[in-house]
């Protein structure tokens, strides 16, 4: 829990984002170059040499700052590579913001990239330190770990498994419908509920459409002091809150943990809301980009982030609360469902949607007068996660 936070002290003044997808013909370098070029093209007169320091988020497409400095041929600038599971891209952004807020730099860039489709495997692969072979994550895949939420949620709240299935289907249907409106998404077509329900099973009751895709992509943000923001753009995005929570690993061993919540998300959301002065997220937040890695995850997140009451997210979701025209649009850009999850890039891709929405550049997905937006990433698995929450806004104060 941060004592102060850095609300309104830094701003995003330019962003870039590649299309996400199976970029067989593009390398990690190509993705980075394309995202950074788009970003800098929005701020004429500012070049790579003007950016004082860089943060690179990538899970496995590089291991040091050299991945960025070599690709961009940077002039001996400081580059820090960060990694924090699925919150990696957000972590690059968070640390870059702190560097400006500290006064050390006036102008920095956060870049996230992931090249997943060179591995030869359809899902995410892991590179763990040597171990004794007993950890469940040694064999159990991520969709299986998150599918543990489904029976537990049904049991706790007495939800008919058919209703829960319908709610999970609705999440996939909604996010694909949103992604169909987004030219940068990996999947750009709506998917019928019948097709979602009929998909082959992956783990538990999760079918292929309950899982986010696997793609390549890169995104980046140029971050400056809030007082300098209008030197670059007339519509900057101000950082209101940055919160991160890493689990002690208690829940995985705790007989009191019931697999219907992520304690890390609750904690990071509390921290972020306090920093941003948010008391009623349901009414104060205009849109949220959350970590819909699997459909039951999004349902649980609605409750952990305070967007729905406990045991109510499944019904609220079916009632349309989180659709583009609903009371709180969630994943208006299509989410991980439509974008896939190039780990290092996802957090910045979420911010990119907030950036477009605040500037009125979200096309068919454009929401009316958004003021505050939330982004959220979750890394790990139920029982022990890292959770990131940011709040960004279109105005100071």
């Amino acid at each position: 829990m941060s004592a102060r936070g850095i609300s309104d002290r830094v701003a995003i003044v330019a962003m870039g984002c590649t299309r996400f997808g199976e970029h067989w013909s593009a390398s990690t370098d190509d993705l980075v170059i394309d995202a950074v070029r788009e970003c800098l093209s929005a701020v004429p007169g500012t070049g790579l040499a003007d950016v004082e320091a860089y943060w690179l988020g990538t899970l496995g497409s590089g291991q040091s700052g050299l991945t960025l400095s070599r690709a961009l041929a940077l002039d001996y600038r400081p580059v820090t590579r960060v990694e924090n599971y699925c919150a990696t891209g957000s972590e690059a952004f968070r640390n870059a913001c702190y560097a400006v807020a500290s006064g050390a730099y006036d102008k920095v860039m956060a870049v996230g990239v992931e090249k997943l489709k060179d591995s030869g495997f359809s899902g995410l692969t892991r590179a763990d330190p040597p171990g004794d072979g007993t950890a469940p994550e040694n064999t159990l895949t991520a969709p299986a770990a998150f599918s543990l939420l489904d029976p537990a949620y049904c049991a706790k709240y007495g939800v008919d498994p058919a209703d829960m299935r319908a709610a999970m289907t609705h999440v996939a249907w909604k996010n694909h419908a949103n992604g169909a409106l987004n030219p940068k998404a990996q999947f750009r077509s709506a998917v019928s509920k019948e097709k979602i329900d009929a998909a082959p099973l992956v783990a538990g009751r999760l079918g292929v459409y309950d899982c986010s895709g696997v793609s390549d992509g890169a995104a980046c943000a140029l971050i400056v002091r809030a007082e300098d923001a209008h030197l670059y753009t007339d519509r900057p995005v101000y950082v209101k809150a940055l919160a991160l929570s890493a689990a002690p690993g208690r829940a995985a061993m705790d007989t009191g943990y019931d697999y219907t919540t992520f304690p890390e998300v609750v904690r990071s959301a509390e921290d972020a809301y306090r920093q941003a002065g948010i008391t009623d997220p349901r009414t104060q937040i205009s849109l949220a980009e959350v970590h819909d890695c699997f459909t039951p995850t999004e349902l649980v997140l609605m409750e952990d982030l305070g967007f729905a009451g406990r045991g109510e997210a499944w019904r609220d979701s079916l009632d349309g609360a989180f659709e583009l025209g609903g009371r709180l649009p969630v994943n208006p850009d299509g989410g991980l469902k439509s974008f896939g999850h190039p780990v290092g890039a996802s957090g910045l891709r979420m911010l990119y949607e907030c950036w477009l929405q605040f500037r009125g550049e979200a096309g068919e997905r454009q929401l009316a007068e958004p003021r505050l937006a939330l982004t959220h990433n979750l890394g790990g698995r139920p029982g022990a996660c890292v959770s990131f929450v940011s709040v960004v806004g279109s105005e100071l104060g």
Partner: protein
Amino acid sequence: MTGHGIVAYASYLPRHRLRHADLGAALGVKSGSGSRVAASFDEDSTTLGVEAARRALTGPPGAIFFATTSPAYLDKTNAAALHAALGLGRDGLAVDLAGSARSGTGALLAAAAAGGLAVLADVRTGLPGSADERGGADGAAAFLFGGPDEAIAELAARVSVTAEFLDRWRLPGEPASRRWEDRFGLESYLPLVTEAGRRALQEAGVTEPDHVVVTSPNPLVARRASALFPARVPAGRLPGHAGAADAGLALADVLDRAAPGESVLLLAAADGCDALVLRVTGRIAQGRQAHPLAAQLAAGRDVAYATYLTWRGLLDREPPRRPEPDLPAAPPSARSQAWKFAFTGSRCGRCAFAHLPAARVCKGCGAVDAMEPLPLSATRGTVVTFTADRLAYSPSPPLIDVVVDFDGGGRYTMELADASPAEVAIGMRVEPTFRRLYTAGGTHNYFWKVRPVEEER
């Protein structure tokens, strides 16, 4: 004749059964009715041995003699894994008698002479369509030898004879054994069995034994030798030939049924013959295993023939499109021996929060290095939530994982063995079982799973 008698015993039969009819239909041959007992994909002679041994053990045995014809490792002592899984710490001898069916009686005689635990375990495999495949059985039995005042059965006599001839043999690395014409083996064995049996009975002063057990990898021998040594009490129903475990399973079945004062003639014909005469004592009623072999044999769940062949490596199926998991690294595995092999976590001495695996810093109260060991291998638990992972790398997908709350505290997410996805439910009762999770990089990854509880004790 010896200072050590059997003080405890237990048998373990894996749950899967391969229907002969299923096998016959797949191969287009007549295969008769009935079934064979089949170890699951995650079981080997070491894990079978652990399951039998932990049921028989009442305290540190002093020594472990482990017999098998299907050692999981060569050039490494498999009995050491048993020793670790039994949570025996550092003390004592643990040694393999690996090679032929005779290793089984070898282990019994060694434990009888020195005191200690004889563990006989085997996974018997034959080529598709072979008599070994159809008539074999997988299983394990363990016998703890101790002081005569505690014995449920005393060893009254033993006679061993040895002969060198080719009846059954296998080169290291070959998937199945070769056999000479069975009648040659029969003619070679009969004089050996006759001699050893007569001498042993004479030595023990027994004229007509109450129970007779004849075991041999040569299928003709058992039938003929039984006629040479008639028993007063008819033999029980046994699984097929279980290699080095065969004599142990047969003896366990006799002890399940024998009355005080009764005599047992055990004849094991393998590259010679070992004849043992045992006398059952008055303690037998208290010393019988809780779950008799006949009941273990009657239980079971079917496995499809194609699945069985895949488990045995005889059908090379397309692997999951996932990277092979990492092999268990030696130093971390050694550091976590109590956890990985004995399923022992820790409980905070201050706040009692249970940690699986053990931790130094308490996740309940933050106390540092205030932990006490929490052994859970004999503790049952309840399923909190579950999944069937169809994407995971598994030798037999889907991989079922359950979150288990153990009775008295402690939670872990682990694999469910011997079950199919449709059987899993919240609230299901489960118990730990020692298994091989997978083999990667030429290294077995042993750890505990849970399996459905068949009956509450």
